[in-house]
């Protein structure tokens, strides 16, 4: 049975899919998460709580200009302030390598140029933050202000300023069938991703071709725990406590930047106070490390304030131009996408976000031809990076919105148009890619029925919508490793690099181990993450925790179980295949119970022994897959909404919103529900009001009071989620990943409901009252 068989000339192949026994419930499924006691008592420890003996505190000076040449920096007076141990300016970092995931362009502090308001110019370590600030106040910087570009069109204009005249070090990942990537394709474009499949000849068969443009605003992640790192570093070694989603990639990037072997760098990660994508890559880390090096290896803590977090990374604003060819009956034929992402001043994770924004062009639908191109545009604004949804949110906004526009033009109900074109369960997403592992129509019907869409009665000013979003889940080509150990008395350790940032995956992985070892989940402890000892992992992202890491964890647990039973069989002179493991007791074929602890001590002595095994999982490589490996699962988000629109003001009130994800198999019910609802409310904020606003070259609401995030009062009167368990996931027991899917369809479903209510078709986010009003009244009557 294979999940990744490429299609044949005969068209898409239906694959046999794994189906978990629906009756079986994973142990701990309906219980509380393992981290509940720590978190409800306040005993949880985050990186912000880390205190080291003799710890120093860092503060930084940030650029007041969007673009300027640094003519000179004089930090001599700052260095004389009592209590200051180090002052960091461009001359202290020239020998270090700039960082970034594919394009290495971000220096530890600005060298020769500043490229956005908030760019780090200098940093100070001192005995306390007050002293550090006092020293920063003495640094003289002479800037030569340069022209800047903040918007896409300005940046692309060849006559305008070029932010990176010289090419930074950059690389392009390997791509398979139909996909390619290229650096520096245009003026101020750092990366372009292209994907094509099928013959462009089919355009000629289309009865209608529609082209529409959609814009997408940018949000801040607004994780409550700021970027924070405590570093103890010399020129030879780095030890760092960092609030990072990805400890091993952090180690690799620090090794690159500081020119050290990876075995001289140790990253420790505590619980994270939220991430949502932001905590991938270097954030507070390099400044803390360099200041520690310059302070004789003393520990340096750099905790950004929330205001600084806003100036560090954001989501990608985007403009998407979709051209779609359809038959008169609504059958989709061909789609061409041209996507521009505002990447900000440094390339950060933009190439990967760009890849996904382009690759996810087909949406949940069947096409004969796709021609997609996405580019990252460099501007003098806050760098954009990974953000929940990761390009998929942008793509879904355009794709679902255009579907509704087409439905209106063809006079077809948007629900029917979706049902007509949705892919089948088991159908490939694109040639060489993994088959769709959820019944898309079943989910769409489910949410539609929930809000009463099929029997809806038209009420003036009220409308409904039903949408779907889809993204490849589990990361690209991502390996995972895990280790399970069991002590003499049956206490279980799970060691994995999966960070806990709220999603509940550490707790769920412990349940998977408990399920395999036949013990209570409480017997399994998640070991602290430390790159010296924890098995390697590429980072906690792409909803990969359960579907990817879960497989490595399950395998490690199964190996331990086999090892224990095999060893016990030998001791007891029984066939291991006839034995069962339950609560650290071996149960023989006759039902006789053999407690393991005395058995282990009998052989290994009173101090005992640890059974240990490693697990490994990675989706198989394939050049037929556009991204070089088929994805592990498809993350689907379904949503249905009802809104009321006040035509006099344009105000939209969401009356009901239901979202649904397919967990495949639920490992933990609260965890699944929490991910779906949390993601949906991210989408809700983006739909109606949440955005990082720029006025010219400076952000104007980069601060907690002015930056509006959803509060409890913003919830629709009826808001709920439904976790499906369709059972086709590749993960443990048929599980799939969660956490991003239900963010995807929320903005489009609200837009569709607005159109249903008052006929206004919105194409820009957020759907502010003024935008809704203007869509209804293109010309405002003068009062």
């Amino acid at each position, binding site marked *: 049975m294979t999940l990744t068989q490429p299609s044949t000339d005969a068209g898409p192949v239906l694959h046999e899919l794994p189906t978990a026994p629906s009756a079986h419930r994973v142990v701990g499924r309906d219980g509380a998460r393992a981290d509940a006691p720590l978190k409800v008592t306040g005993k949880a420890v985050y990186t*912000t709580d880390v205190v080291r003996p003799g710890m120093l505190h860092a503060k930084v000076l940030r650029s007041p200009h969007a673009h300027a040449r640094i003519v000179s920096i004089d930090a001599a007076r700052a260095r004389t302030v009592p209590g200051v141990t180090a002052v960091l300016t461009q001359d202290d970092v020239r020998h270090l390598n700039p960082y970034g995931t594919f394009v290495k362009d971000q220096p530890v502090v600005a060298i020769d140029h500043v490229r956005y308001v908030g760019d780090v110019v200098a940093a100070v370590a001192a005995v306390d933050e007050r002293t550090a600030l006092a020293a920063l106040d003495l640094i003289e910087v002479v800037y030569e202000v340069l022209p800047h570009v903040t918007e896409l069109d300005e940046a692309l204009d060849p006559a305008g300023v070029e932010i990176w005249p010289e090419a930074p070090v950059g690389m392009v990942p390997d791509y398979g069938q139909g996909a390619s990537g290229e650096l520096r394709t245009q003026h101020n474009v750092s990366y372009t991703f292209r994907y094509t499949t099928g013959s462009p000849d089919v355009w000629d068969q289309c009865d209608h071709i529609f082209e529409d443009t959609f814009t997408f605003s940018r949000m801040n992640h607004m994780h409550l*725990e700021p970027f924070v790192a405590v570093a103890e570093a010399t020129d030879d070694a780095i030890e760092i406590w960092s609030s990072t989603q990805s400890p091993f990639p952090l180690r690799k990037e620090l090794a690159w930047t500081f020119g050290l072997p990876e075995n001289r760098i140790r990253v420790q990660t505590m*619980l994270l106070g939220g991430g949502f994508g932001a905590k991938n890559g270097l954030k507070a880390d390099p400044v803390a490390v360099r200041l520690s090096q310059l302070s004789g290896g003393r520990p340096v803590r750099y905790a950004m304030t929330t205001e600084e977090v806003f100036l560090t990374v954001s989501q990608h604003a985007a403009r998407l131009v979709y051209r779609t060819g359809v038959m008169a009956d609504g059958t989709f034929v061909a789609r061409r996408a041209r996507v521009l992402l505002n990447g900000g001043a440094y390339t950060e994770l933009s190439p990967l976000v760009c890849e996904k924004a382009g690759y996810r062009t087909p949406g949940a639908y069947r096409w004969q031809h796709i021609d997609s191109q996405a580019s990252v545009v460099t501007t003098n604004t806050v760098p954009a990076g990974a953000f929940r949804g990761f390009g998929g949110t942008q793509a879904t906004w355009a794709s679902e919105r255009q579907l509704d526009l087409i439905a209106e033009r063809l006079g077809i109900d948007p629900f029917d148009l979706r049902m007509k074109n949705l892919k089948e369960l088991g159908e490939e997403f694109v040639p060489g890619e993994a088959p769709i592992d959820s019944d898309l129509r079943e989910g769409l019907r489910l949410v539609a029925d929930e809000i009463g869409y099929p029997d809806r009665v038209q009420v003036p000013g009220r409308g409904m919508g039903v949408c779907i979003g889809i993204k490849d889940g589990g990361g690209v080509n991502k390996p995972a490793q895990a280790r399970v150990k069991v002590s003499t008395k049956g206490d279980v350790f799970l060691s994995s690099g999966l960070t806990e940032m709220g999603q509940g995956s550490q707790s769920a992985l412990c349940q998977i181990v408990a399920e395999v070892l036949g013990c209570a989940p409480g017997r399994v402890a998640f070991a602290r993450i430390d790159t010296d000892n924890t098995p390697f992992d590429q980072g906690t992202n792409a909803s990969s925790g359960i579907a990817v890491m879960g497989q490595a964890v399950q395998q490690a647990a199964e190996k331990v179980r086999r090892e224990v039973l095999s060893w016990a069989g030998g001791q007891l002179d029984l066939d291991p295949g006839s034995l069962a493991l339950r609560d650290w007791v071996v149960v023989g074929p006759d039902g006789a119970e053999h407690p393991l602890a005395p058995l282990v001590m009998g052989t290994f002595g009173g101090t005992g022994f640890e059974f240990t095994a490693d697990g490994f999982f990675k989706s198989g490589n394939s050049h037929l897959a556009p991204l070089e490996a088929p994805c592990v699962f498809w993350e689907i988000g379904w949503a249905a909404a009802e809104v009321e629109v006040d035509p006099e003001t344009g105000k939209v009130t969401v009356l009901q919103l239901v979202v649904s994800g397919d967990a495949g198999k639920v490992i933990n019910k609260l965890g699944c529900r*929490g991910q779906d609802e*949390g993601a949906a409310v991210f989408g809700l904020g983006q739909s109606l009001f949440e955005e990082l606003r720029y006025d010219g070259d400076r952000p104007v609401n980069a601060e907690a009071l002015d930056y509006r995030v959803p509060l409890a009062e913003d919830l629709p009167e009826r*808001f709920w989620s439904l976790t499906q368990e369709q059972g086709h996931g590749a993960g443990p027991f048929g599980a799939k990943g969660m956490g991003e899917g239900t963010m995807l369809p929320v903005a489009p479903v609200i837009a569709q409901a607005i159109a249903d209510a008052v006929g206004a078709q919105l194409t820009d986010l957020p759907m502010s009252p003024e935008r809704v009003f203007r869509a209804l009244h293109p010309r405002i009557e003068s009062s």
Partner: protein
Amino acid sequence: MNETTIDFRLNGTPTEVTVPTNRLLADLLREDLRCHGVRSSCERGVCGACTVLVDDLPVASCSTFAFDVDGASVETVEGLAAADGSLSPQQQAFAECGGFQCGFCTSGMLMLTTGLLRQNPCPKRADIRSWISSNTCRCTGYEMILESVERAAELGDGGAR
């Protein structure tokens, strides 16, 4: 003298400290009195992660100077569980209903809940929504927090402790 001595009750225990005048209640609790459950996030009174009760009312400890709690009763998340470690109804409810994810807002949400239930042991959904709207949670989407508060009320005793 830019120092001040304050006398207050911290989770029921009489406490006297001398602090710099600009000492914030949040820093006093976290750094001097080992109440690490008080979380600092936006530090300008908006997000409420640092919410504690001062004389039964929820306040942002990041925006409260320590001198202002002289003579007051201050309660933090550390004071919720019983001496034997058993969880309070609010804590049980948040654990049971999944009213937390990353946990960074949880201490503040629990103290808001405690303040609400003390005033109103049987709050309506609208009251709960209004109170919980004081603080930011970026993870849960709030519904499970609202249900946690309802459950806490149901579990009895609520904020009455």
